[in-house]
């Protein structure tokens, strides 16, 4: 418990850094699978809902790969009533979508296509004033951003199930990356949220 508390304090201090952060937030099974998170539904609970709500409130934009964008664009505009404020944020926030195959105009409200140099475009977004930019799902994009060193925080919500198949967050052949644990949270449902930052970034700060 003491360790958790100290880690929490570290996080608060670094939050004062003004540059906009890219925060990758994922639902992950115990075997690292992030694909089609319909299996997470059974573990849903109030703590998790609050966590997701706070997380989205602390951000003001989303950065998505094509597959996740298409899934979201098909679902969120139609569930605004049931999901209330959360859906309003999802539908209202600017969405930046990385794809070489999609074309503008994008159908989901407030979505912009990033077609050119991803490194350059994402770096530019980070320099604009604003809050966190969240990445949900988007496995291919995450691996690309990781290689480019553009991720400021990884938030892994680990569910107590081994799925046995499906696409993993960290594919084979990812470069060795040393991270620093900056926070842990445990929900009654057995879900654990682990937050990490790149170790070298931390040192620069």
């Amino acid at each position, binding site marked *: 418990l003491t*360790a*958790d508390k*100290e*880690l929490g304090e570290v996080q608060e201090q670094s939050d004062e850094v003004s540059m906009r952060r890219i925060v990758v937030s994922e639902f992950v099974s*115990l*075997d*690292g699978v992030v694909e089609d998170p319909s299996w997470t539904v059974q573990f849903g609970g109030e703590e998790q809902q609050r966590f997701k709500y706070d997380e989205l409130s602390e951000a003001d934009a989303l950065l998505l790969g094509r597959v996740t964008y298409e899934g979201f664009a098909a679902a969120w505009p139609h569930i605004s009533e049931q999901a209330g404020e959360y859906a309003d944020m999802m539908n209202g926030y600017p969405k930046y979508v990385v794809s070489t195959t999609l074309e503008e105009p994008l159908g989901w409200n407030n979505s912009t296509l990033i077609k050119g140099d991803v490194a350059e475009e994402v770096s530019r977004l980070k320099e604009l004033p604003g809050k966190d930019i969240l990445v949900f799902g988007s496995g291919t994009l995450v691996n690309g951003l990781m290689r480019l060193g553009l991720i400021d925080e990884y938030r*892994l919500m*680990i569910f*107590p*199930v*081994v*799925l*046995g*198949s499906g696409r*993993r*967050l*960290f594919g*084979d*052949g*990812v*470069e*060795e*990356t*040393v*991270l*620093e*644990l900056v926070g*842990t949270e*445990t929900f009654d449902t*057995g*879900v*654990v949220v*682990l937050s*990490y930052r790149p*170790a070298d970034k931390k040192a620069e700060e």
Partner: protein
Amino acid sequence: MRKVIASEFVSLDGVFEAPDQWHFPYFDEEMGEEIGRAMAASDAMLMGRVLYEEWADFWPRQDPEENLVAARMNGVRKYVVSTTLEEPLEWQNSTLIAGDVAEDISELKRQPGKDIVISGSGSLVRSLLTDRLIDELRLMIHPVVVGSGKRLFEERGERIALELVDSKTFSTGVVYLTYRPASERDDSDRKETT
């Protein structure tokens, strides 16, 4: 009844192979105490062939007076699951389990004694978890993505529902998570341990 406990070092990307390449910077007193506690609560080890061969080649060569772990490793009772190894096994106190693994392990669990610990031995852990023969899965998740190496949970496995029993955070950033099989069957056991 004796518990079978799988205890593993894993990287954040789920790799458990060759921990000598990434684990050592995170070993400290806090982790050592946890491992010591687990060792003291156990009196036997269960392992697959790969780990057996690696350890049988390593531990007997260590000087037990200098390396206290070596004395323990060599002295403790070891059960080795393999369809290709043959008796007699060279490493002292090693017994081969070559027949019906589920039955032999269930029998071991019924015998009096302390915990039986598994480390490494990925395919054994996966099959025992699927057969609900593992009572606890303890993962020490290291804050590093290693990018290559065998994962504890390979693709094409079965779906296994678990339940979180405990979580601890070490100051090195290692997170120690303890799971047990989701208790659909064993309500009595659940009450006893919570």
